[in-house]
């Protein structure tokens, strides 16, 4: 990361942060509901700051500690209706070149990398590669101008932090 002035001198494809959101979800004083995550709050904050909607996202890196993690985040971030995450995924929507939401083209945490409590940065790295056009040719998203990176940390049902980042190719 660097200042805009230095970035322009680097002769590299530039990527800028459009919007970001953070939210904790706690134990809710016993008002427990395990069917959503803090993404329902961090997502809208990031989309509002960026001035875009889920339909504008060309690529998403979403933290995948488990498959259920991804399903919940896809729903909470608004990429499909709540409860439709399973169908959205089984329809092939996460496959680059096939679906609506090319996803974790580095293999993600389940198939490639999960550096302990640093799983968030690898999500940002692959999103930046996609925006720069530097992802693997077999999975590079065409005209990838806006991408999202998102993660949760902690327990998925309760007691976690949620962070959403939306970036654009400058």
């Amino acid at each position: 990361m660097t200042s805009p002035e230095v970035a322009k001198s680097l002769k590299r494809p530039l990527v800028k942060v459009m919007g970001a959101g953070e939210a904790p979800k706690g134990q809710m004083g016993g008002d427990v509901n395990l069917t959503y995550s803090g993404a329902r709050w961090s997502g809208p904050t990031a989309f509002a700051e960026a001035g875009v909607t889920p339909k504008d996202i060309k690529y998403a890196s979403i933290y995948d500690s488990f498959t259920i993690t991804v399903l919940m985040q896809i729903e909470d971030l608004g990429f499909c209706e709540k409860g439709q995450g399973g169908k959205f995924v089984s329809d092939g929507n996460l496959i680059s070149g096939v679906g609506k939401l090319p996803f974790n083209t580095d293999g993600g945490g389940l198939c490639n990398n999960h550096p302990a409590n640093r799983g968030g940065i690898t999500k940002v790295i692959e999103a930046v590669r996609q925006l720069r056009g530097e992802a693997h040719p077999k999975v590079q998203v065409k005209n990838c101008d806006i991408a999202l990176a998102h993660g949760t940390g902690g327990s998925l049902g309760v007691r976690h932090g949620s962070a959403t980042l939306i970036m654009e190719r400058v």
Partner: protein
Amino acid sequence: MTEAKVRAFPPAVVNAESKPYWDAAEKGKLLYKFCTACKKPHFYPRTLCPFCFSDKTEWKEASGKGVIYSHSTMRRTPEPYTLAYVTLEEGPTALTGIVDCDPDKLKIGQKVHVVFKPTKEGPPIPAFAPD
């Protein structure tokens, strides 16, 4: 009971905030807290209401009846045990354990009631068993 081994509960750490809760557990009573400012019950009990942050919280005795909101059984251990969220009759949902049961037969929505399990060096721990 189909399990040969039963997992012992570790003793609770009692502090000033939770002492009334554990004192009640000694007498076989399950307490929760109610905020007289925002009129909401909560669990686990706090001095400050987790919803409105008022200190006008008071102890109330729960009926001890509830239903299973969700449950999960840890089997990869010598003494399998079941964790669950149980929604109390009074409203709040508590993270707890299900005991004296066949874990394979538990169901979401199943009626359960509080039981108190002894610990070696501390007050008994509230858990829930199927009705």
